[in-house]
């Protein structure tokens, strides 16, 4: 390992690990099942009546049915059972926290504490179809209607695919230069290796009828007023563009990074050795983003990685499974503490500083269950501090060009069950809507639900 002791300046370095080690670290964290493993796992499914797992899947995939088809060797039928309700069944098989979704509901938990590996089986069936480059869906005759979709993430793409199937023309406007949203820029690299996100985008677009317009920012290049005029309906799948502030003294100094932005760079880096990472890393936050940045830092070669979270293990947004994953990757999780102050090194004599140390205060719940500091403090040395304390919806682009305002709720777009927003013909889904659960699978369900509502709206 390159690097010096942190006595005379920050220890930030690239290429901390050998190329082969980096490649292994960012390869498939859960390798696919081979045909025999899939058969054994599939035969563990009891084919429950009114299966609890179906209810636990936000997109309502008929899980026992697709598993039975794997067991009988009907992989085409199996993949269709998955992709019909969830066009991103391939991504979901890799990224869903199944331990709190379908697999949590599996009745095998009750009998033997070991659920059927639904996610792995879902991947087996969808991989089969992807490897054969089959597009199993067809478009209905053209309706002559055009829908604008803003945001090419899971919500936008799921909506686009279903609308195209239903016969409508679709334009997808995306600010970045690639479609995919957080599947492309946010999900941990080892969950979706081998360009999976782009392969899935290609699969979705191969249906036809969907025209992508990348590098088109809503609020800058296009406006809500303009889209409502040029299209018959609009779907907003904007995700969350802002990040919360740390509210700790010194958070502007160098070496303090937004975890989501860093992950986006990591995801786009062809050569992981080019990424600079501190020798000592502190991550602030308790969600999956915190886990992902901590583990990926470790896998880039950081020596000490500590997550600092202001509450306990149970309150963490990250599932118990994800917490354990971080810990087995050598990440330390410190609960019940919050950052108060960052101390830094002077940088090049100027007034700017680079983080050296982060001072934290222990926390507790008071008698009214409010979080308070105990007054006791401790310090951690840090060459890099990652902020992973939650993302927020930025509503400004909605108002660009003096558009009529959309109702918000809890800071996100307010929608009804149909995912219809407060203006006629405007729909929204995914992370940007109120009640959004910040899960890929939830975003897909929103996009699909909205597509059917838009279809009804356009045909009424």
């Amino acid at each position, binding site marked *: 390992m390159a690097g010096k002791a942190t006595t005379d300046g920050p220890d930030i370095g690239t290429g901390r690990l050998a190329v082969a080690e980096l490649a292994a670290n960012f390869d498939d964290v859960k390798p696919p099942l081979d045909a025999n493993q899939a*058969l*054994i796992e*599939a*035969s563990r499914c*009891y*084919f*429950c*009546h*009114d*299966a*609890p797992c179906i209810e636990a899947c936000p997109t309502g995939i008929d899980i026992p049915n697709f598993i039975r088809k794997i*067991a009988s060797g009907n992989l085409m039928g199996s993949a269709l059972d998955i992709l019909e309700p969830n066009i991103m069944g391939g991504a979901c098989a890799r990224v869903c926290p199944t331990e709190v979704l379908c697999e949590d509901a599996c*009745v*095998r938990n*009750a*009998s033997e504490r070991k659920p059927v590996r639904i996610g792995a089986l879902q991947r087996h069936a969808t991989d089969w179809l992807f490897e054969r480059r089959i597009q199993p869906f067809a478009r209905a005759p053209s309706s002559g209607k055009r829908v604008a979709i803003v945001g090419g993430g899971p919500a936008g793409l799921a909506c686009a695919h279903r609308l195209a199937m239903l016969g409508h023309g679709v334009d997808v406007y995306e600010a970045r230069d690639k479609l995919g949203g957080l599947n492309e820029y946010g999900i941990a690299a080892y969950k979706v290796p081998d360009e999976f996100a782009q392969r899935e985008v290609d699969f979705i677009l191969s249906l036809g009828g969907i025209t992508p317009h990348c590098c088109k920012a809503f609020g800058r290049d296009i406006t809500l007023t303009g889209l409502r005029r040029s299209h018959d309906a609009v779907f907003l799948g904007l995700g969350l563009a802002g990040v919360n502030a740390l509210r700790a003294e010194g958070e502007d100094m160098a070496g303090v990074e937004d975890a989501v932005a860093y992950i986006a760079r990591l995801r786009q880096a062809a050569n992981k050795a080019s990424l600079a990472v501190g020798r000592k890393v502190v991550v602030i936050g308790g969600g999956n983003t915190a886990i992902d940045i901590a583990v990926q830092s470790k896998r880039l070669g950081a020596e000490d990685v500590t997550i600092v979270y202001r509450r306990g293990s149970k309150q963490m947004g990250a599932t118990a499974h994800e917490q354990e994953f971080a810990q087995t990757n050598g990440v330390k999780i410190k609960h019940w503490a919050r950052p108060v102050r960052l101390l830094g090194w002077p940088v090049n004599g100027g007034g700017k500083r680079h983080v050296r140390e982060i001072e934290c205060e222990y926390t507790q719940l008071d008698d009214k269950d409010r979080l308070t500091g105990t007054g006791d403090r401790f310090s951690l040395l840090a060459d890099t501090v990652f902020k992973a304390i939650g993302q927020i919806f930025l509503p400004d682009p909605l108002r660009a060009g003096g558009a009529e305002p959309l109702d918000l709720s809890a800071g996100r777009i307010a929608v009804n069950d149909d995912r219809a927003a407060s203006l006629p013909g405007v729909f929204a889904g995914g992370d940007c809507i109120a009640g959004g659960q910040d899960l890929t699978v939830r975003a897909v369900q929103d996009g699909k639900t909205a597509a059917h509502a838009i279809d009804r709206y356009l045909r009424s």
Partner: protein
Amino acid sequence: MADLGTSFAGIKSPNPFWLASAPPTDKEYNVVRAFKAGWGGVVWKTLGLDPPIVNTCSRYGAHHLNDMRMVGFNNIELITDRPLEVNLREIKAVKKAWPGRAIVVSLMVPCEEKSWIDILKRVDETEADGIELNFGCPHGMSERGMGSAVGQVPEYVEMVARWCKTHTRMPVLVKLTPNVTSILGPARAAKKGGADAVALINTINSITSVDLDAMAPTPTVDGKGTHGGYCGPAVKPIALHMVAEIARDGLCAGIPISGIGGIANWRDAAEFMALGAGTVQVCTAAMHHGFRIVDDMIAGLNNWMDGKGYREIGDVVGKAVPNVTDWQYLNMNYKTLASIDQDSCIQCGLCHIACEDTSHQAIAATRRDGKRHYEVIDAECVGCNLCMHVCPVQGCITMVEVDTGKPYRNWTTHPNNPMSKQ
């Protein structure tokens, strides 16, 4: 410790576990390995006249159930493909080295007295403990007028059994084919011909699967397939029935039975013995897992017998035979109801859907506080056992006897029976 020693039609073995006549007993090498593992006896792979038969390439088919391999097994092999002389020499050597173990020699020669006289004389010289007449092989040999072609005709069975009894000092076992409408015909014929025992079942005519790419049955030999003999766990219920039929038949008059078919552990063996088998023979389970399975068979039978207070094999053999009856004598006033143990229920719903779709709509599916809840509707339950069998949790659904207060009544006296004797 119970005494597992067995004396069967005069043949002694330290335990009732024999290997059936098949590939596991085809050579000295295998049989010695089997004896070292603890098997009480073997029935040597069937001998025939020279020149030896020729086997095909691709010989076995299998019925797999999901990840369970070889739930059923099938073969298109024939009798031994080694010269008679070699087999006889090896039999003699093994018997000499292992005098305490039973060696029975399986035979199949053309249906002429002279052929039998010749071969019996040569087997006699090996000092083997007995012979088993292979009247069961359902393929290859039957087309040549041997195997099941003999076993399916009671008159031939009787005739050959009588020849053998006349021309050898050794006990004669007749191995029966299940490919008949009633096993009693050939079994009674064996008895009539003087056989000392019957052994059953041999394999069942079968096609295990069809290769849908090659459009041919398996096992496939150069694009074609043929029916073969089925065995393994799947045939056990068929074999048990046939054994029981013979055990309770007056004309078979208690002829000793060597039970065969799907036996893989001590429990299977005990079931055959309870239905009247004095020894059991195993083929597929050994071909699947090797000879060491006998370890569990010996220890398991011993422990079970100790637990039940059975001291020797004779205490077990035939113990269940008096309880095998005809349907018309079953008590129509006996009633059970399904009962679901809610604490062990995992809410899979399989009992509900099975009863709802295919039986008596006697299990209600409801929700309690949002949780799935399955409950038996006593008034609709006919006590068929379906739910208990589909339930994946051992002991969760049980059938509970209900006192109807009514006396024993069977079909022969039932008012709905047009032939009622009352």
